[in-house]
């Protein structure tokens, strides 16, 4: 029993708990907070997997910006209205089994894939600086075009959001 496995299980449990809370919560704001919990747990998992830069990005951008946006919108729309999950019959008898089926399939295939059989060697053989440096190098060399394209994508998204949410004057 070493620290990595303990950490892993802790974070795994946290993330699953967060996800369950998301489903079972009755108010949307509770679901949002549960999602933040999930993201934090996943960030720690990224750290365990030896990707500190991504963990940082996850916390800063995902949990810190996107989720904040969600919370703003929930509060703006006063979505505190109680709503109960209406387990319609189709959903109950079709959806739940389907979800589990999907789950099992993916798990099964991933488990038996060659990569899944690889054992992650804990020796990350990466120090943070080199890791981030290499990543940024890749971003600006091989993946330059997608990088620039996503910049434009963000610009368009901003414009779109502005136009859409503007009140008719």
């Amino acid at each position, binding site marked *: 029993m070493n620290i990595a496995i303990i950490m892993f299980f802790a974070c795994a449990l946290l993330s699953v708990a967060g996800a369950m809370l998301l489903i079972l919560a009755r108010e949307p704001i509770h679901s949002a907070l549960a999602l933040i919990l999930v993201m934090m747990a996943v960030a720690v998992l990224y750290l365990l997997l030896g990707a500190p830069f991504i963990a940082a990005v996850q916390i800063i951008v995902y949990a810190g910006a996107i989720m904040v946006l969600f919370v703003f919108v929930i509060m703006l729309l006063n979505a505190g209205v109680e709503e109960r999950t209406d387990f319609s019959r189709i*959903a109950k008898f079709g959806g739940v089994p*389907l*979800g589990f089926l999907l789950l099992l*399939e993916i798990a099964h*295939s991933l488990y038996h894939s060659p990569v899944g059989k690889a054992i992650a060697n804990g020796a990350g053989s990466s120090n943070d600086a080199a890791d981030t440096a290499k990543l940024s190098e890749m971003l600006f060399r091989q993946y330059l075009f997608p990088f620039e394209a996503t910049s434009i994508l963000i610009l368009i998204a901003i414009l779109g959001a502005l136009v859409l949410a503007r009140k008719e004057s």
Partner: protein
Amino acid sequence: MPLLNHLWIVLALPLAGAAINGLFGKRWAQSAVNSVAVGSVVLSFLAAAETVREFCHLAANQIPFIGNYFTWMVGGEATPHPFRVDFALQVDQLTVVMLLVVTFVGMLIHIYSTGYMAQEGGYYRFFSYLNLFMFFMLTLVMAANLIVMFVGWEGVGLCSYLLIGFWFLKKSAADAGKKAFIVTRIGDFGFTVGILLVFATFGTVAFSEIFSQVAEKPVNILTTICLLLFAGAIGKSAQLPLYVWLPDAMEGPTPVSALIHAATMVTAGVYMVARMSPLFSRAPIAMLVVAIVGAVTAFYSATIGLVQTDIKKVLAYSTVSQLGYMFLACGVGAYTAGIFHLMTHAFFKGLLFLAAGSVIHAMGGEQDMTKMGGLREKIPATYWTMFIATLAIAGIPGFAGFFSKDAILEAAKDGPYANLWLWLLGVVGAGLTSFYMFRLVFLTFFGKPRYDEHKVHVHESPKKMTIPLMVLAFLSIFGGWFAAPKLVGGIDYFEKFLAPVFSASAPTSDAITAAATDTTASPAMDLLHALTGWPVIVGILGLLVAWWFYVKSPDIPKRMAQSVRGLYTLLFNKYYVDEIYAALIVRPLLWISTNVLWHVVDEGLVDGTVNATATIARDSGGQARKIQSGNTRSYAAWVILGAVGFTALLFGLLGVAN
């Protein structure tokens, strides 16, 4: 030999006439239409005559002379017996006879029609059809293979339909045209199957090639082929049981009846049987069938003709009867006699019809003999020509019909295929023929007029009509002389002329040689023998009885009709054959067509399938659109379903990452 190398000219001339008149004749004056129509036939006759002249210079090994103009269709080139049909025309002695008969009689009838149809509407159409008919008939007689002959066969059927229904606005005429076409179609079906069987057996449809292989083929196949081909002849030549269209065909104009239903089209069946004589001679059963059908039809039709009152109907039944004699001749192996009778029949029957047309024209359209009478002095030219023709058909010695009919009955009695019953039927039929033909003459021309003389102005027909009558009358007398068979003291030219064509029919040539070497009897004895034979006796007997019944004591027929009322009614109503056919065949077919084929198959199956396709498309679309419910969550569910399926496909079926 220019014309022999271009035989198609004989065909092309009437076709050109038909095309020109058909396309342009509507706006032309009658004289223009005349010159095109009659001119094309006259030219065709001259071309035929020239062809015959050139033919006579051919050596024996060049006959039959075949002109192959183009390959019409070829199928199955790689097989050992490809189906090859060339547009080939041939000339041999038989063709020569038919050519001259068709073109000459056709020419006379065209000239006659210019007078007869002068007051009719659709003048150009009539001559266009008539020329078209000449084209098809010439194709038929000059064909060198069965398919080209069949083209002519069907073509004359088409023209017959068009011409019978010439006055198509009259329902009975339109119906008669349809009846003719449909009834002959039944026979044509047999003919078609026969042609197919010929091809299957011989690997070719060309006559010369077929005849060279006949000796090797088994008899039962040949018999089947002959019977099938004869079925076509039964339809086209109006024999029992497919004769019913010919009396109805009298709805057409009289020149049509003369040309098509007396002289040429109906003889196509006889020509075909004579042409296929090598096959028939190897199939005695088929020959017997032909002879029986011919003899029975001859007798049967004569009985109906005894009591008919419409002048054209009497002639129609007479035609059926005489055709029966021609088939009887072929059936007993006397092909030459059959063709000879065909020729003389063309002369006297054509004349009879044309003269009847003249009578009808004179009477202003009346066709019922009971309303005529005493026309002898008023229309003498018509009377004398008709009388001559009647003498010919009755077989009175000296006239054309005597020689031909005598030859047939002689062959039926003494020939190699002789059959006494058939001979008996033929003789009795001859007597009946004589009787009803003279009855016709006496009713029409003798006695007191039975019509209102103030209403009907009887006038002689114009020269255009009477001159062809006289030409045909001349031929009815002398047309038989040059061909008179030896046994009546004639020079037997016809028999010798046609001998090469029928030489494959061995028994007949044996009979010829036997007769030729028979030196015991002298020509004079032969003549006396012939003059006192049964055909002559019954012929004269018929004349006398008719005289007695219709001139001496005109009320005998009425009393006889009263006393044998049942028999009289039966004969008058043509043995109710049309009604029987309608009940047994036509009505069930109509019922099947309406209830089974129309309601069940067409409406149920075909319409049903189409409608069902549409209904399926619409309903499945209706079901499919329920996916678009507007309910976002169900969309989400479908998306996930698709994802699950696709993942299963990827990992399970396609074996990715396994």
